[in-house]
């Protein structure tokens, strides 16, 4: 479970932007769509949950562990251990092949206690995901040789390869045509369900929202004003 209480965050104390959340809870395995206009703080909220940013006050807990109280190194390990990320702009490394990009979290987490096991297990998982997402023929290619949809599916596989407990997807369909949008969201939700992961995804596409368990809208003033689930209204 993710729990956020009395959270306040601004960039270097700036008064132009302030994210304020009174209370927000997300259950394990829940699928949540974060919605709201550009610049309202959706990405900032994802990064706070991911431990990239530290709130000025309040607490963020993941399965009871106060993420906001961890030091930087521990937060990095938390991201590697618990979180799979799917960014909007794919963020694939062009000097790696598609397969190596998918296995990247394994290389980043080598030497830590996280991960799903050996290299061979990660390779096997990479092949499975590539098979299910339809990019198994592309594993030896470079990202620049792929279409936008193929790149996003590669980024999705990378986010899922370590079987994370929490998937954070920052508008992963923003650069895709409607057909690919559907395909990527279907894959994300199906694979997350397969490993019983919680999903928090930012989206601007109203048509995609019904596929989630609920949506959370972040206001233009960076305040969560409505929770479609009804209870965890943050203001």
């Amino acid at each position, binding site marked *: 479970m993710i729990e956020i209480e009395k959270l306040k965050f601004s960039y270097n104390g700036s008064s132009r932007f302030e994210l304020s959340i009174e209370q927000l809870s997300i259950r394990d395995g829940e699928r949540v769509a974060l919605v709201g206009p550009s610049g309202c703080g959706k990405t900032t909220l994802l990064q706070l949950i991911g431990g990239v940013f530290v709130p000025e006050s309040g607490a963020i807990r993941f399965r009871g562990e106060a993420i906001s109280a961890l030091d*930087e190194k521990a937060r990095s390990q*938390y991201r590697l251990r618990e979180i799979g990320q799917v960014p909007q702009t794919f963020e694939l490394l062009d000097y790696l092949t598609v397969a190596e990009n998918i296995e990247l979290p394994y290389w980043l987490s080598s030497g830590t206690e996280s991960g799903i096991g050996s290299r061979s297990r990660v390779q096997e998982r990479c092949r499975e995901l590539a098979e299910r997402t339809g990019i198994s023929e592309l594993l030896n290619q470079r990202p620049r040789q792929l279409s936008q949809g193929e790149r996003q599916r590669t980024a999705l596989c990378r986010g899922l390869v370590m079987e994370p407990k929490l998937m954070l997807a920052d508008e992963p369909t923003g650069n895709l045509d409607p057909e690919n949008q559907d395909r990527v969201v279907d894959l994300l939700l199906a694979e997350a369900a397969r490993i019983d992961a919680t999903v928090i995804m930012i989206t601007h596409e109203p048509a995609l929202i019904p596929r989630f368990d609920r949506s959370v809208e972040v206001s233009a003033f960076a305040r969560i004003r409505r929770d479609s689930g009804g209870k965890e209204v943050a203001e």
Partner: protein
Amino acid sequence: MNFSGVWFLGWRYLLRNRWKALLLIAAFTLVWVLPVALLLVVDRVGENLRERALSTPLLAGRAGSPLELMFNGLYFTYPDLATMTLKEVDAIRETGHAEAIPYYARFSSRGFRIVGTNPDYARFRDLKMAAGRSFLRLGECVVGSNVARELDVEVGGSVISSPEMLFDLAGVYPLKMTVVGELAPTGTADDDTILVDLKTTWIIEGLGHGHQAASDISAEFRIGEGEDSDSGEAAESIRLGAAVPEYNEITPENVDSFHFHGDVGDYPVTGAWVIPTSVKERALLKGDFAQLAELQLIEPAEELEKLLATVFRLRGLVVALLVLVGIAALALGGLVLLLSHRLRAEEFRHLAQLGTGRGMIRALVVFEAGFVIATSLVMSGLILATLNELSQRWGQ
């Protein structure tokens, strides 16, 4: 620190950008190698030159460039030096101040110098035979170890002197010489020489020759008959023309027919290695030579030091310039690496977001520069070790 991750990502990045990395490695290697190599090679060559010069007390020759005489006496270069005569060498010996070993180093065989001298040279240089014996008779030669290897000759084989000018009918004709010995390797210029008796070089030059007995030569080569002009006696003599066929190989059968016309004392030698019997005799001999305008007596070590002093001054200048160029090259290389880092800033930001620690990011940042610098240092070490080895041979 996640070393396997750093290695994986760093290495993949370098492989993907291999040409840039190779160029940087090559540039950095040159920056490290050039000044050090120059210092190393000049030092090594200087050492080798000194060693040979110090083992040669004095050198006598016709007045002229002392530097050319030094190189001729030590390395048999400058073959066309003005010559002195055997009489002049004998005169040195007769002073009692020193032993003098004459040599004539004008001719060659397929690029290897033929040095006419006497068997004392081997003792003077402490040369050992690897096979065979020293030269004793006309037409015999002893080859240095490199000559034996390069020309693929051994004892019992032969070498032929190279004609000086291919179409010079009045010039030097090739002489076939029998190899009777092979020198053990010395690591000096002696490995590249063909040692013969002084008279053999005079035969190559055409000052001595061998042919059939005059009485057996057909009339077409005779230009007159009459009294022996030299003795003035009434004995019958035959005068032969220059076209009479001469032997181009000296064999046991024809060796007796070889002879020299005129006074051998007037025959040319390039110079003489002079070994004074004491420091005092050395000073006296130098004093004697100071009076002679047509001859010079040099101390090879002294001449060499003069030369090396100039070389070292130039070396210092060149090294200073190389260091400046190196600093510029390093600055450019640093700029390339800095720009490369800037281009990767987004990648590092994203890796950090995925959970990569600061230590690993820093390691990835320095991996490329570290690899380039480390590899260039290893390459430099290998090149310098090879140069060190080669420079010993060049020095010789």
